[in-house]
């Protein structure tokens, strides 16, 4: 029980109390506050994107840059894994 453990315990308890209060004072489950953007997407996805699936039209049409960033992260992670583990194969 050194000082490090005590400090970590205090930090953890503070974070726990914060999370419990946050979950307690959250808005009621099942009733979103602001949904103007989502209502627009739900109503216009068939005319603008031409797709029946709202989620796919958001992923690839309305928010394409998110997917671009995701592709970058996936590429980087795969390159990192191959770079780390490839060296063992030739030894």
């Amino acid at each position: 029980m050194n000082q490090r453990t005590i400090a970590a315990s205090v930090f953890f308890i503070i974070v726990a109390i914060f999370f419990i209060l946050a979950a307690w004072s959250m808005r009621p489950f099942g009733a979103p506050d602001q949904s103007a953007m989502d209502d627009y997407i739900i109503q216009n996805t068939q005319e603008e994107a031409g797709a029946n699936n709202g989620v796919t039209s958001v992923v690839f049409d309305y928010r394409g840059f998110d997917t671009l960033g995701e592709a970058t992260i996936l590429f980087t992670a795969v390159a990192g894994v191959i770079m780390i583990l490839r060296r063992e194969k030739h030894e």
Partner: protein
Amino acid sequence: MIYNLPYFAVMGLILVGLFALIFKRNLIKMVIGITLIESGVNLFLITLGYRENSTAPIYTSSPGGIMSLPVPQALTLTSIVIGVAVLALMLSFVILIYRHYKSLDVNEVRRLRE
């Protein structure tokens, strides 16, 4: 009207992951903790986008009625694939550390480093 129980589930997941991340010394246990935190965040996003008595935001032969919000679902979708890629990267680092130090203990690794 479930009285915020899914929010408490999110809180529990994140707290359990944080506990593993702070107090556990095994590297794979810490990676499991990070996975738990990521699952909690995914559940939080989906919970934010849920409406009472709604259907999925897909028009193909849907029964009609109000629909749940599509944007949080799309964000979660990208988050899951990022999560598994980053998990593989972390586990590769863990394997590399084990080959160098012959140990998974964080304190051992730190002590041998000095």
